[in-house]
């Protein structure tokens, strides 16, 4: 490989914006004043979008992906969080189906009562002294990740007069490219709040909604300990073609 060659133009597949919720989704009221009204300016991905930060294993602690333990350990307590114990696991892949190794996966969530440990959460439900609600991990060489946590509770939120969020876990994902950056939410199979949620239903295509609902995974369940849910994630890509698609002369 000769040095100093920029990565080729067009090397990140254009994002299908129709698959994502539109910026302006009036059923989700906060989006009304926070949505750009001008068209997005489209340009091919450049070196600035196909590169991205690298996270090493040295940055991740051994309890970072164990929400059942990580807050208790930080507060030097000895209790257990309240609520149904669950494992959340899956694979991060690109659009070609290749696993994305070394991807930083960060999650945050409410406790089993539907309360976030956040100074701005004024929900009536109680904080859990043994639960913080954040975790992070790096995917392994196949793109697989795993967390241990409690099932978050649904909670009311100020949008309509009686809107409730389905149980959900927020996910933040880094692939190798800053242009792959994604934040999303994972929902749980069978939650009756799913068809009622204005945030989830801002997504126009029902197949895209289904992509956010994790099924119960009995195979991965830990008997007499924790049920498992499987949540697979797809990032833009694919990375391998970034090296194959350099235009002539570069």
């Amino acid at each position: 490989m000769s040095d100093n060659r920029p990565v080729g133009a067009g090397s990140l597949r254009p994002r299908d914006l129709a698959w994502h919720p539109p910026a302006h989704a009036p059923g989700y009221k906060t989006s009304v004043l926070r949505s750009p009204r001008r068209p997005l300016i489209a340009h091919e991905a450049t070196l600035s979008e196909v590169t991205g930060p690298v996270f090493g294993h040295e940055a991740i602690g051994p309890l970072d992906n164990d929400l059942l333990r990580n807050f208790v350990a930080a507060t030097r307590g000895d209790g257990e969080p309240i609520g149904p114990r669950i494992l959340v696991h899956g694979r991060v892949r690109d659009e070609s189906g290749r696993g994305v190794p070394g991807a930083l996966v960060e999650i945050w969530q409410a406790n089993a009562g539907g309360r976030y440990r956040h100074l701005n959460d004024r929900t009536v439900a109680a904080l859990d002294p043994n639960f913080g609600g954040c975790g992070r991990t790096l995917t392994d060489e196949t793109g697989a990740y795993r967390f241990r946590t409690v099932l978050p509770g649904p909670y009311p939120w100020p949008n309509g007069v009686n809107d409730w969020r389905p149980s959900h876990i927020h996910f933040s994902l880094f692939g190798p490219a800053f242009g792959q950056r994604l934040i999303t939410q994972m929902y749980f199979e069978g939650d009756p709040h799913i068809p009622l949620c204005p945030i989830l239903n801002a997504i126009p295509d029902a197949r895209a909604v289904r992509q956010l609902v994790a099924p119960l995974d009995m195979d991965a369940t830990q008997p007499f300990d924790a049920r498992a849910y499987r949540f697979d994630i797809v990032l833009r890509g694919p990375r391998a073609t970034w090296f194959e698609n350099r235009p002539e002369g570069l």
Partner: protein
Amino acid sequence: MVQDPTLLKETPSQTAGPFVHIGTHPWTVGVEGVFAAQPGQVVAGPDCPGTRIRIEGRILDGDGQVVRDAVVETWQADPNGIFASPVDPRHERVATGFTGWGRFACSFADGAFAVETVKPGPVPGPRGTTMAPHICLWIVARGINLGLSTRLYFPEDAAANAADPILARIESPQRRDTLIAEPWGEGAYRFEIRLQGEGETVFFAT
């Protein structure tokens, strides 16, 4: 009939919501000590060569109200235009102590965020072009359904900005100007991001 080169669909985005800080900046909202490292807090370490700069920013909504619950990520090249990423074939020559990535929570009090970094160099662009020094920004918050991508360019680089292939995609000079930071004293700049309405910042899709 032809073959069906089936690709997987990207996982759809959902808003980061009002409690994003628990995931990105837990130590600022009452979840201290869970993580040993705080990613995104140092873009350019003390040993990093280059011109030190400070960017003071804030985000305004369609009513001109300051957004206080957003998180802003920045990504940039080093002073020689090299990224700290193995995707950049030149990455072994990246500046000492330089990560190029920052993550900043807007202040709950006044919405301000500040980026301490070094000024990036020009970066190779598509088809032999050169992109003017710039910082990529990615903005998430309650009410933002898909993270918003924009770029900050520098006011002293008028000639380089005029030749920049990405700025050239923006037809209106007024709109292009929304991406040029304001000088804000010695080594400092101000960058106001308007989500909607008059002076709406240019956001990109790639």
